[in-house]
């Protein structure tokens, strides 16, 4: 059986006066349905480029991407994208911003049904009483909530997140990670996120793809994160494997590990985890 998302030999090459500039090359990745994948790497290594190629917003130079058995060609509403800046249309209310996509995807539904879908997702992200507010009246974090609701409301095959919390303060970032992970668990949409926040990557993903430094960046290491879902941030942070995982990722980023390929697994000691699943009620919240 082939993977749900199959990225093979993907490359991004720009022509330049000094010959072709290779940004990303030999990028291979298979993602199972319902998996949450995070791509980390240094700024400018090309991780966003890979995500944008999956989104269809950046042209593929070499290789190919197959999603649910079909080769991708250009952008489409089957892939919900959450951009770094929420990119809401400032002249539309939060509801209308979500409806813009819903109307496009569910064009056979009645007006009331479409409105109900948009209202549902906005309520789930905690904006039930800000439906008619315009982006200018919302805080940065609330705007990104609208961005997340807009992506989920399309009921996409895949969710693509390009450093969605990069512009937020850390408290807001925690809140929104929780909103995102709750929604993702409920819908089990295959997700691919780009970030450079190691803790965010560990908290959210099933597997973390570490990219080597550019130019000519490729997949360096793929690290599995075996904490069971649903995850509790405090519980995970208390787990000994958390620090081993974190140290490993940071080490990778620090030594730049250029072109050091390999597939490593850091198990969260499955036997242990089965014995003592992280239980939010039993573990005292950190200070």
């Amino acid at each position, binding site marked *: 059986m082939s993977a749900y998302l199959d990225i093979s030999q993907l490359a991004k090459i720009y022509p330049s006066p000094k010959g072709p500039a290779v940004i990303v090359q030999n990028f291979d990745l298979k993602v199972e349905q319902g998996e949450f994948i995070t791509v980390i790497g240094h700024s400018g290594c090309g991780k966003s480029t890979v995500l944008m190629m999956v*989104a*269809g*917003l950046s042209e593929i130079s070499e290789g190919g991407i197959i999603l649910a058995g079909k080769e991708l060609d*250009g*952008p*489409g*509403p089957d*892939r*919900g*994208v959450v*951009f770094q*800046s*929420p*990119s*809401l*249309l*400032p*002249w539309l209310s939060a509801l209308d911003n979500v409806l*813009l*996509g819903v109307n*496009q*995807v569910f064009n056979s539904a009645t007006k009331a049904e479409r409105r109900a879908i948009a209202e549902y997702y906005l309520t789930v992200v905690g904006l039930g009483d800000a439906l008619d507010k*315009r*982006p*200018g*009246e*919302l805080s940065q974090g609330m*705007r990104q909530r609208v961005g997340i609701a807009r992506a989920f409301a*399309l009921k996409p095959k895949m969710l693509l997140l390009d450093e969605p919390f990069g512009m937020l303060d850390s408290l807001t970032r925690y809140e929104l990670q929780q909103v995102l992970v709750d929604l993702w668990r409920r819908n089990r949409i295959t997700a691919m996120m780009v970030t450079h926040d190691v803790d965010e990557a560990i908290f959210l993903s099933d597997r973390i793809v570490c990219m080597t430094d550019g130019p000519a960046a490729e997949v360096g290491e793929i690290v599995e994160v075996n904490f069971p879902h649903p995850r509790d941030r405090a519980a995970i942070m208390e787990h000994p494997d958390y620090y081993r995982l974190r140290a490993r990722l940071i080490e990778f980023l620090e030594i730049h590990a250029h072109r050091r390929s390999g597939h490593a697994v850091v198990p969260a000691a499955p036997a242990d985890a089965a014995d003592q699943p992280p239980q939010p009620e039993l573990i005292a919240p950190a200070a």
Partner: protein
Amino acid sequence: MSTTAPSGSSRVELFDAVVRYLFLNLGVPALAVALFLAAWSGVASTVKVSFGALPGPSAVANEAGNLWQDHLAERQRESDFYKRQTERRAAFLAKSPQGEWKDRRYAGRPTYIDQIVTSLKTVFVGFLIASLVAVPLGVVCGLSRAFNTAINPFVQIFKPVSPLAWLPIVMILVSALYNPTEPLFEKAFISSAIVVALCSLWPTLINTALGVASIDQDFLNVARVLRLSWFDKIFKIVLPAALPLIFTGLRLSLSVGWMVLIAAEMLAQNPGLGKFVWDMFQNGSSQTLAQIMVAVFTIGGIGFLLDRIMFALQRAVTFGRTAH
């Protein structure tokens, strides 16, 4: 005593602030206008022209009153005429019921107020033509670099052309092409409106193109991800995003149009303010200068009002757009 001093002094401070604000925003302009009027009337009495002295402010105000009285008198004559006509028709039909009666239109001369209305109609028709041409053209320019490059030489060459150069061409073309048996509009009206359009479409064209070309790439990505149709992309993303700059252009266009209109009317003999100024100049009576000055203030005042209206519209479409 000293216990009430703080609130007392803050009340005094507030009062001072209000007085200062009123003085700056009402007092200073009023003072400036008063000084201007004083200087004007002082100078006016010393300048002699071929038909008497230069009119001062009071003479001009007086003339404005006269023009208004003329307007009222003309309206009175008009309603009298139609009243008499109705009576005569009743009498005629009473005498010979089978007879054929033909109503006549009142053929009085247009008053100053009529001329203002004509000017406003002309400028709006011209402005409408300009907007209908410039906005779609600007959108295409903003979307396509190739089209923009193609149209750029024409913009650069035609933009600085004076209305006085366009008018003869337009008048000749209108005479040649517009010859209906029952004309809905006069040729002079059409020529003036077209000249207004030709001169005023450039700011809208340029600003629309700029507005569309500088749309946030994120908005266009949203359109691409959602696979919006071409129509939806234009009407749901591109036009709303460019609206503030489109309105900046429209505001500039309307003020250019109003300025150009007076010259166009003078030459085309469209019965508006421009023709009024020209006719008064040709009259050369003792009231000529005062009447033309009334026209100057009218033109300035209407131009100012039009600009305020466009400014309010511009503010309304730009409102609440600080963030996305």
